[in-house]
């Protein structure tokens, strides 16, 4: 593909990695995306295992970091969206946050530089898990009919408007919530990766021909790398907080 007379790699080369393990197998194969997910899984599990291995009243080392993370989730996400009875969702929300955070962060780690969540599979899977969780929580907390009644018939709406509101709300809880959750994470990561690649290609091409002007796109590349660190953390935060909001809405329909 040719952008501004530069050789921009075709987008498949940026996101579609060849399998390097079991490449001939029809059912099971491993490529860079899968490997990043496995590493994030091990990192998430290992972090909490290392922190809980030698628990002490005065936290040291890993335990300090993990306690800060857990307290952040508790104070900024659970308490403000679900309330005190949301504490039982802490393990789910915390692992969700750290897994998404780690798999996003590979976007800026040198020599890897690929956000695993820029492939749709795992964001969609996580969104479907969240979808199942908030439906099950709502049905268990309120009962089947009461759950759908409170979800589809928000109070304070004039009666004739329910003709309009009920289909929208139904579409919202069945389709729009999980899809927007998955697309938000995926599209942010795709956009970030494309942005970084564009400025990297620009710097490399300018450095190969004109040398000095390459400073400008390279400075932009560094700035954008910092920005993408922020976006990775923010998207993990937003994914978790929306999950908590949906769970909270199922638990306490009056809000």
């Amino acid at each position: 593909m040719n952008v501004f007379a530069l050789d921009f790699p075709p987008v498949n080369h940026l996101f579609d990695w060849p399998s390097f393990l079991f490449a001939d197998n029809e059912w099971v194969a491993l490529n860079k995306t899968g490997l990043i997910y496995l590493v994030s899984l091990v990192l998430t599990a290992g972090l909490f295992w290392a922190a809980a291995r030698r628990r002490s009243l005065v936290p040291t080392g890993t335990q300090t970091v993990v306690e800060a993370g857990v307290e952040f989730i508790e104070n900024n996400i659970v308490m403000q969206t679900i309330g005190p009875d949301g504490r039982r969702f802490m393990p789910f929300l915390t692992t969700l946050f750290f897994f998404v955070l780690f798999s996003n962060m590979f976007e800026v780690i040198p020599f890897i530089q690929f956000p695993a969540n820029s492939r749709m599979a795992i964001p969609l899977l996580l969104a479907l898990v969240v979808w199942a969780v908030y439906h099950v929580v709502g049905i268990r907390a309120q009962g089947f009919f009461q759950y759908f009644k409170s979800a589809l018939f928000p109070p304070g709406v004039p009666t004739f408007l329910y003709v309009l509101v009920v289909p929208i709300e139904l579409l919202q809880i069945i389709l729009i919530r999980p899809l927007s959750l998955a697309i938000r994470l995926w599209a942010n990561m795709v956009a970030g990766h494309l942005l970084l690649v564009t400025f990297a290609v620009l710097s490399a091409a300018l450095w190969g021909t004109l040398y000095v002007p390459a400073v400008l796109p390279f400075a932009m590349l560094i700035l954008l790398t910092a920005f993408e660190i922020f976006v990775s953390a923010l998207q993990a935060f937003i994914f978790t907080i929306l999950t908590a909001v949906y769970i909270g809405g199922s638990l306490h329909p009056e809000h």
Partner: protein
Amino acid sequence: MLALISTILAQLAGDGEAGMKAIGAGLGYGLAAIGPGVGIGIVVGNAITAMARQPESAGVARTTMFLGIAFTEALALIGFVVFVLLAFA
């Protein structure tokens, strides 16, 4: 610069359908970004006003602000998805 533009125009002229696709993708994303741009501005601006008036409730305002940004931003991201589909798929 003129050479660049003429190169791009020549590419467009060479493949009319791809050119229309590219124009559609660019216009589509640009139009989809207008509304969310204004919307995020309103959300963040009002959140800052709230935080400045009541610093003690800054935490709640910040959380709600991020929620509002996330919902508003979804529209821009759908525009971006349309752009990706038109430009690359």
